[in-house]
């Protein structure tokens, strides 16, 4: 499984763009990059998934360079309600469980949005 490294915490202010970079140097050919968001006392929630280049949805954008050894989650114009822990996961899509293909959640990045 590809190991991921992401910052432990980040502070930001309302209205700013937050960029969280995740390193995954040993990503495999079949691996996707998936980000989840977790609020206190809640289960994680899927944000976005990508394989290469750029993916954008109504919540965030995901930038993946050509070598795929890192990825950046971009949250535009954050608000106080975006304060949460963000997890970067790398592996085959979760529904394709196979021996060794068990996505793990690392420690995540704790994002604090200040007024």
């Amino acid at each position, binding site marked *: 499984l590809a190991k991921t490294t992401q910052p432990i915490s980040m502070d930001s202010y309302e209205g700013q763009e937050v960029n969280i970079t995740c390193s995954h140097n040993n990503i495999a050919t079949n691996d996707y990059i998936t980000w989840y968001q977790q609020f206190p006392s809640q289960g994680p929630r899927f944000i976005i998934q990508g394989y290469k280049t750029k993916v954008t949805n109504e919540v965030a954008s995901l930038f993946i360079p050509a070598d795929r050894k890192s990825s950046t989650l971009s949250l535009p114009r954050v608000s106080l309600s975006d304060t949460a822990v963000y997890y970067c996961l790398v592996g085959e899509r979760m*529904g394709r469980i196979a021996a060794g293909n*068990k996505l*793990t959640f690392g420690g995540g990045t704790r994002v604090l949005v200040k007024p």
Partner: protein
Amino acid sequence: NAGVTQTPKFRVLKTGQSMTLLCAQDMNHEYMYWYRQDPGMGLRLIHYSVGEGTTAKGEVPDGYNVSRLKKQNFLLGLESAAPSQTSVYFCASSWETRGRDTGELFFGEGSRLTVL
């Protein structure tokens, strides 16, 4: 749609007691998972199931047993609870991915277990 429902939400046990956490999903998902989350840490996979009647070990299976007798339910059992099992337990479910499906995990609200 209720999504993924976990019961109970809170429980306090004494060392050596047994209990079962119930996870129910109404999305007809094939896959279900149990995770534990300790303070300030990420989630660790305990056991998972790829379909009714099947279970498999995850990253930290010791001290837990699971059963998936019905497609919509995934039970997590602690036969003899230990203080080290004090944690928040999350159940999740997902589709079997086909084509462009993301394999998104849908999580329950969590069950907070304290073992004294």
